[in-house]
C-alpha cells in the first residue's frame, strides 16, 4: 500500500468551484491510504422560497419558482403548472401538452449543450475552461454555442425570453407562436441534426476514466414517450409508483455540513439525471437515436458516471428529433389557454429537469392562494450519491496522487452531475487532511 503522504496534515483552499452553477466545498480526510471522512459542503445561502410563496396567488407561482434556478426555470414552471392543473381538475389540450414538451426540449437543449461544451468537455480535454479550450477546439465550442442558442430560441418562441420566460400559465400559454416563427425554428432544428449526431460520436470518443460503480437510477417513466414533462417514479430496483407517493419511499434529511437537504430512497443514495434516465428509458428513444448511439460501441445501461456527458449528447440528439416531430404540422390554435378555476387541496407535480427529477407539492386554498410548498430539486437528490461517488472514484483513481490531482479528479466527478448549486448551492474549497 502506498502511504507516502498518509501522515502529513495539509489543507488546500480552492476558492469557488468553477463551471458548476452554485457554491460548494469538499472536505477530505485520508489516513493509512484510506478515505476516513468525505463531506461535500453546499454553501449557497438558502433563499427560503418554500416560505415566501405562501399567501401568493397561484397565478404568481410560476414566475416566483422560476427564480429558484436561472439555468432551468422552465423545469420549475412545468412541475408547478402540472401540479396546479391536476389539482384544479384541468387536462391540458393536446396542443398545450405538445407545446409544453417542445418548450421543455428547448431548456434541455440549452442546458445540455452548455454543460457538454462549456462546463464538462474542458475536463476531458485537459483545459482550465472553455475559453482556453476554444483556441484548440474552435469548431466544437462554436457548435456548443450554436446548439445552446437554438435551445434558447425554442424557449423564446413560447416564453419571450429564455431565462425566466413569461409564456406558461395555468390553462396553457399566454400566447401561441405564429406559424412563420415556428417554420423558421423547424428549419434550424433540421439543420442541427447532423451536428447532434456528430456530437454523440465526439462525446463517445472522449477518454473516460475507468470507474464502474454500483448505484440506483431513478427517473420518471411515461407509458407513451421518453418522460420529460410527466410520468411515474421508477427505479432500476423495481420501484414503480405514482409521484404522489414520493414521500413514502424517499426521505429528505439534513446534514450539518450543507445547506442543501439530502434525499435517500429507502435509506440509499440514488442518481437522477440524464444517465439515470437513459439507463431506465433507453428503449423509448427513437430508432435513429439508438442506432447512432450503438454505432459508437458504448452500451447503456451504464454504470460509469463519466458516461453522463454521453447520455446528455444522446438526449440532445433525441430532443431535436422530438421537437421536430411535435412541430411538424404546427397550426396556431383557436385558443392558447383555457380559463381554469382554482380548487382547494394538495397539488403534486414532477417533471424531468435537465439535471433530473424535480418534485413539487403545494397546499392551495379555495381562492387559489398557496398555503404551503415543498420543492425537491435534483441537486439535493444527487448529493448523497455525489459523496458516495467521489469516495469510490478517488479510491479507484488512487489516493497516492497529489492533492492538486485529487482535487481536479473530484471536480470532474462532481461536474458529471451538472449540479445546479444555486437551487440548493460555486465554491469548491478542498480540505485534505492526510
Amino acid at each position, binding site marked *: 500500500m502506498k502511504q507516502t503522504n498518509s501522515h502529513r496534515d495539509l489543507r488546500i483552499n480552492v476558492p469557488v468551484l468553477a*463551471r458548476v452553477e452554485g457554491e460548494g466545498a469538499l472536505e477530505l480526510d485520508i489516513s493509512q491510504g484510506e478515505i476516513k471522512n468525505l463531506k461535500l459542503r453546499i454553501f449557497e445561502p438558502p433563499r427560503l422560497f*418554500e416560505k415566501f410563496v405562501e399567501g401568493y396567488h397561484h397565478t404568481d407561482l410560476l414566475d416566483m419558482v422560476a427564480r429558484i434556478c436561472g439555468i432551468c426555470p422552465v423545469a420549475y414552471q412545468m412541475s408547478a403548472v402540472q401540479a396546479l392543473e391536476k389539482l384544479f381538475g384541468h387536462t391540458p389540450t393536446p396542443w398545450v401538452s405538445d407545446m409544453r414538451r417542445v418548450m421543455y426540449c428547448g431548456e434541455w437543449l440549452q442546458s445540455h449543450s452548455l454543460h457538454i461544451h*462549456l462546463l464538462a468537455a474542458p475536463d476531458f480535454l485537459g483545459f482550465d475552461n472553455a475559453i482556453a479550450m476554444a483556441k484548440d477546439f474552435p469548431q466544437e465550442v462554436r457548435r456548443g454555442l450554436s446548439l445552446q442558442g437554438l435551445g434558447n430560441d425554442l424557449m423564446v418562441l413560447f416564453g419571450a*425570453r429564455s431565462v425566466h420566460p413569461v409564456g406558461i400559465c395555468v390553462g396553457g400559454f399566454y400566447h401561441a407562436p405564429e406559424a412563420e416563427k415556428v417554420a423558421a425554428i423547424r428549419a434550424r432544428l433540421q439543420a442541427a441534426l447532423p451536428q447532434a449526431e456528430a456530437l454523440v460520436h465526439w462525446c463517445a470518443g472522449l477518454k473516460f476514466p475507468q470507474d464502474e460503480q454500483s448505484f440506483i437510477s431513478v427517473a420518471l417513466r411515461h407509458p407513451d414517450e421518453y418522460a420529460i414533462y410527466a410520468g411515474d417514479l421508477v427505479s432500476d430496483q423495481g420501484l414503480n409508483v405514482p409521484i404522489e407517493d414520493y414521500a413514502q419511499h424517499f426521505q429528505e434529511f439534513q446534514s450539518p455540513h450543507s445547506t442543501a437537504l439530502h434525499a435517500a430512497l429507502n435509506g440509499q443514495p440514488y442518481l437522477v439525471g440524464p444517465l439515470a434516465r437513459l439507463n431506465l428509458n433507453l428503449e423509448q428513444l427513437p430508432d435513429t437515436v439508438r442506432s447512432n448511439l450503438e454505432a459508437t460501441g458504448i452500451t447503456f445501461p451504464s454504470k460509469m458516471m463519466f458516461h453522463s456527458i454521453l447520455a446528455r449528447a444522446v438526449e440532445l440528439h433525441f430532443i431535436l428529433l422530438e421537437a421536430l416531430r411535435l412541430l411538424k404540422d404546427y397550426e396556431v390554435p383557436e385558443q392558447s389557454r383555457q380559463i381554469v378555476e382554482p380548487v382547494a387541496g394538495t397539488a403534486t407535480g414532477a417533471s424531468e429537469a435537465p439535471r433530473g427529477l424535480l418534485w413539487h407539492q403545494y397546499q392551495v386554498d379555495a381562492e387559489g392562494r398557496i398555503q404551503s410548498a415543498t420543492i425537491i430539486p435534483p441537486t439535493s437528490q444527487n448529493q448523497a450519491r455525489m459523496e458516495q461517488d467521489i469516495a469510490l472514484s478517488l479510491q479507484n483513481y488512487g489516493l497516492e496522487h497529489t492533492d492538486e490531482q485529487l482535487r481536479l479528479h473530484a471536480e470532474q466527478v462532481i461536474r458529471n452531475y451538472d449540479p445546479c448549486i444555486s437551487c440548493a448551492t460555486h465554491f469548491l474549497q478542498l480540505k485534505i487532511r492526510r
Partner: protein
Amino acid sequence: MNTQKPCLAVHKFSSCDGCQLALLNLGEPLLDLAELIDIIHFAEAGPMAPDRYADIALVEGSVATEEDLQRIQSIRANTGFLISIGACATSGGVQALRNMTDSNHWIKAIYAKPEYISLLQDSTPIAQHVHVDFEIWGCPVNSEQVVTAVRDLLSGVKPAKEPAALCLECKRAGYSCVLVSKNEPCMGPVTLGGCGALCPSLGRACYSCYGPAELVNDAALSQRFTQAGLSSTAIKQRFHLMNSQAPAFEQAGQKAQSMGK
C-alpha cells in the same frame, strides 16, 4: 502605449445564476467582447481569479451572509468600475421578501436543524454596502444592456441609464395595452423599461421584474387596480414580488395594504 487589455470580473452573490447565464447566452457577442477585454473571473464560464484587480466588475446577487459582507468590501477595493446587475444585486431580489418577516421562523419551518443555517436577517442590494458606479436592473438583466455598458466604458463613455418606463417601450413597439383592453393588472406604468415589453407582447400584464421606473405614480395605479377588482392584498403583492425592497415599491405595497384596512 499600454497594449494590455482591461480586465473584467463577474462575481456572484445570493442569486439564481440567471444573470450570469443571460451573459453566457450571448454566445458570439460574448466571444467578441472577450477580444476587447480580458475576462479574468467568471466562475460559471470557467475563469477563476476572484482576488485579482478588475477594471470593471459585474456583480450578480444579493448580500445574504456574514461572509458576503466581507467579500463585497474586498471586491469593491479591487475594482475600478463596479456594476451591479439584476434584481438581486439592485434591490435584494425576490428572496428579499423575507426582509418583511422574521425569517428565523421560516428557517425553522424548512430545516429540521436550523442551527446549521447561517443567514443574515435581510437580503440586501449591493449599493447598501459599497459604492456602486452603475446599476442595471432586471430579472434577469437584458444582457445587451450589460454589453452596451461595458462597451461604453471601453470607449471612455459613461453608460447611460434606461430613460423611460415600460409603458413607453410598449407603446413604441405597438402592442395593445393590456391594462386598457383586457383590464389586466399591468405594472407597465410604474416599471423601468429595458426588457422589450415582453409580457405585453404575449398579451399578459407586466409583473415588474425590472423594478421601479424613475417616477412612480403608485397611488393612481393602485386605484386603477382597485377598480379592476383587485383586493388590497393582491395590489400589495403586485408591488411586493420581484423587487419588494426597492424603496418605491416597498412603500407602494405598504400603502396599498393600509388602504384596505
